[in-house]
Each structure stands twice: as structure tokens, then as C-alpha cells.
């Protein structure tokens, strides 16, 4: 056991300040363990959100020494013995109290995305999709909605452009639907005009903080940017579609296959 110093931000939406606590830290403990110890013995009214303690629910995301992290997955032995641990709520969202932010804005973004629309079945009445195509989509399904990618995104965090950008979490939500071989919805226009994919300047912080190691930028956002380029900015593809009458996405194919 060793005594460690914690600086925890205490307050609410009106304001607050850092309060220093000293606590004994045992071998193998994570930051959430120490916060629970502080809550039990020194600050019974400390507000923090947690649930699974296994890095799978995304509840205990907070900023630890300035970086968005899951408190339950941040081992204390990552830090130098004399280092003070600073805990703050996520910056990108309003504070409810202490370390608990109000992340409801994210759920509103989710509702803006057109849901999965299944293609018509094959001639034998079955829907088929193959593992190689699904692997690509499956990566995005690992998201635990900790919202650390939303927090670290400077467009939302520092530039206050929540009006223009839905954030990296919802870029990969769209990517997961758009790349699904059985999906028949067209979200490319809303990706450009409403969800604001162009606001992302691909500085990859979202990918760096993702606890599920989802390659948000390379596998999600950039492929979506490229699909927007296909549709709106590539003069050759636009001319090709105009000449041949072909559309990029599958809506027409559905109509054609229904006719057949």
C-alpha cells in the first residue's frame, strides 16, 4: 500500500473547484477503485458514474491527467509513485455534478441517423451476407458508447460546433450502416449536409482514445469522406453517373430487383 494524491474536480453546472484527497492505493488497483475508496471514506457525496468495472459499459469515462480514459481500465501503476492524479469530467459535455457529465446530446445525434433498411430477399426468400464483408462492419459494433471520442474531438470539445458535427461516434455508426451489405438506405447526403463529415479534419485523436481500439479514422471516417467525394466532388464520377443514369448507392438496385 502506498499513499497517493488525487485532485478531483468537485462542483456542478454553476461552477466548482479541485479538491485534493490522499488515499492508500493497493497493488493492482485502478483509478475507479481509488475513487470508490475516497467516496467511501472521505467524500460520501462524490458523484461518479460507473457500472461494469470491466471496460465494457463505457460509464466511467472521465479525464485522468488531462486524457479521456475509462477509470475502471486505468491502472494506478501507469503513473509515477509521486505523481498527483487529476480527475475531471469530460470537457465536451455539460457537467451534472462532480465527475458526471450530461451526455444526452449524443443520443439526440443517434436519432438523426436513418436506421437500417433491409434489402429485398434473394429469390429463395433468404438474406445472405458473408463473413468477409461483415468483418468490416463488425469493428464498429464494438463501440461501448463511452463518448471519449466525442470528448476529445476538438470540433466538439473546443470549437463548440455541436451544431455542425455529430462527432466521430456517429460517423462510425453511419459507416457501420452504410457498409452493411444488406442495408438499402442512402445516408450520404445527410452525412454531408446534416451530420457534417467535412468538419472532421482527421487529426485522429478519436482513434487514439478509443478503449475498444476501433480504427475510427482510417476505417470509418475516411471511407465515409471518400463516399461523399464519390457523390459530390469527383467530377468524373458525377459525369459518369449523369451519362449512364447510374446512382452510387443501392436504392435503384432495389427497385430493379423488385421489378425482376
Amino acid at each position, binding site marked *: 500500500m502506498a499513499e497517493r494524491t488525487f485532485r478531483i474536480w468537485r462542483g456542478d453546472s454553476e461552477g466548482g473547484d479541485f479538491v485534493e484527497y490522499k488515499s492508500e492505493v493497493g497493488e493492482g488497483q485502478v483509478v475507479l477503485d481509488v475513487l470508490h475508496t475516497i467516496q467511501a471514506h472521505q467524500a460520501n457525496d462524490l458523484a461518479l458514474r460507473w457500472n461494469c468495472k470491466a471496460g465494457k459499459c463505457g460509464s466511467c469515462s472521465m479525464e485522468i491527467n488531462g486524457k479521456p480514459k475509462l477509470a475502471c481500465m486505468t491502472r494506478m501503476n501507469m503513473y509515477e509513485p509521486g505523481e498527483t492524479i487529476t480527475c475531471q469530467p469530460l470537457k465536451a459535455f*455539460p*457537467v451534472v455534478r462532480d465527475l458526471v457529465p450530461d451526455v444526452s446530446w449524443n443520443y439526440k445525434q443517434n436519432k438523426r441517423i436513418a436506421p437500417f433498411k433491409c434489402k429485398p430477399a434473394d429469390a429463395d426468400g433468404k438474406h445472405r451476407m458473408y463473413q*468477409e*464483408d461483415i468483418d468490416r462492419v463488425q469493428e464498429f459494433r464494438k463501440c461501448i458508447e463511452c463518448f471519449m471520442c466525442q470528448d476529445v474531438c476538438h470540433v466538439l470539445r473546443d470549437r*463548440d460546433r455541436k451544431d455542425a458535427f455529430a462527432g466521430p461516434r456517429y460517423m462510425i455508426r453511419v459507416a457501420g450502416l452504410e457498409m452493411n451489405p444488406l442495408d438499402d438506405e442512402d445516408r450520404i447526403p445527410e452525412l454531408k449536409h446534416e451530420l457534417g463529415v467535412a468538419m472532421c*479534419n482527421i487529426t485522429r485523436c478519436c482513434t487514439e482514445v478509443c478503449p475498444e481500439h476501433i480504427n475510427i479514422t482510417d476505417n470509418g471516417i475516411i471511407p465515409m469522406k471518400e463516399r461523399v467525394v464519390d457523390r459530390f466532388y*469527383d467530377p468524373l464520377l458525377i459525369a459518369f453517373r449523369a451519362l449512364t443514369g447510374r446512382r452510387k448507392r443501392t436504392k435503384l438496385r432495389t427497385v430493379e430487383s423488385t421489378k425482376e
Partner: protein
Amino acid sequence: MSKQLPVVGGHPTGFGATSRPDNWWVGPAATFLGLLTFLAYAHWAAFQGEHYYAHSYLSPFYSPVLWTDLAAAGSAPVEHAWLGIWPEWWPSFLPKSPALLILVFPAGFRFTCYYYRKAYYRSFAGSPPGCSVGPMAPSGKTYHGEGRLLLFQNLHRYFMYAALLYIPILFYDAFLAFYNGGNWGVGVGCFVLLLNASLLSCYTLGCHSFRHLIGGRSDCMTPCGKATTQFKLWKMSTWFNGRHMAFAWVSLFWVGFTDLYVRLVSMGVIHDYNTW
């Protein structure tokens, strides 16, 4: 949209402000110095217009040679120039450097590259300089990301098409490097040129636009459950894409080094060990 509650939580605000105690600035600073060094050298080398050819080695900054100025020291022989000798109508106030005629495409490819965009947005534009570090001009509605003035970044795929054409040209240069005056032989410069073409290939094949166009644009690359050529190419590009940053830096360094090597051999500063 409803107005957000005021951001509280003890977070510092302003350019470079952060609660991070680590040396977050080392990465952007190293990137800044690395790119600045390359840009300075590449500009200097491109404007020289001489000492870009030695033995049978052609500097990649000058390949392909469209016109050659035979009066310049260390210039390519006329059979190496696609359009022959430098035209007389060329304005005298413009430098006679073959590099200036062709570098716009690889330079545009690098400038609009998704990796380099990250690199210079962070290290040159401070947008943001690091993760959870305050960016330059953080507040207000003036930030438009890659919209408006930066819409030209969407032309990356066209620079990629051009960059793809350079790969066989650079391999052909490396092949020709083994023939000095019609005699087959081997020199250190041959391997320098060969490695340069290989590294540039690795960088180009991992390009995000290439990966998209080769297969990523499709939702179904394995119809009937069988891996198609499209799927195999996409998997190959995905492997390179995962190492895109590494290949971006290594190929950047090596293309500069290749020019320097050819230049120093041409100037007689260093000796090229070879069998000729």
C-alpha cells in the same frame, strides 16, 4: 438546437492549454521540424536544375525529365528527356529546372494525403496541436473543418492517379540505373533508386483513396462468399494502409536521400561504389 450549458470542470482554455502533464508537444514539434527540413531541402534541390544525373542515376525529384538543359552541369542526357532539349522560347526569368515541371503531382499527393493532413493540421496549424490540447482560435463559429477553403482536399484521388503513374517510371529509372553507357553493372546508387521506388510504391498503395477506389467503396466484395480480386486487392491495400504513416515518413526521407546521393555523386563529392 438548445444552447449548451457552460463548460465547467476545471479545464484550461486557450491555445496549447491542457491538463496533460506529459510531453505532448514532442510529437508535433518533431513533425514540424521533419516536414520543414524536407520542404526546405526539396525546394532548394528543385530549383537547382543541375547535378540531378550521375552515371546512370536520375534523381527522383527530376523524374520524368521532360526537357533537359544540356548546358547545366550534371543534367540528364537528351535520350533521357521525353521531349528533348530545353525549348528556346522558355522565358529567361523562369528557372530551367525539370523538377519544377513535374513535382506538382507528387507534392500535391503528399499535401492532400490523409496522413499528412493530420500531421500538418496538428504541427503547423495547431488544429489541435495535440489530443485534449487547446487549438489555435478555439471558439466561435469560424471553424469549418475541411469545408469551404479546404474543399480542394477532396481532389486527393486525382493526385493519387498521377502518383500511380510515377511508380512504373521510377522503377524504370531504377532499371536503367543498372546500365551505365550500355554496360550492365551494379552500383550503390542502383539500390538507392530501387529502394526509393519500392518505398514510394508502399506509400502509394496504402493511400486511403486508393483503398477506397480499389474496393472499399463496395459494400459487398465477396459475392457468393468467394473472395474476389477486388477483395484481395482491398486486403492488400489495407495492410499498407495500416502502415501508411510509417511508409509516409520512410519514403519521404528516402526520396530526399536519393536526390542527395545522386547530387553528391554528380558533384564528385562522394564516390559511388560500382562494377563499371
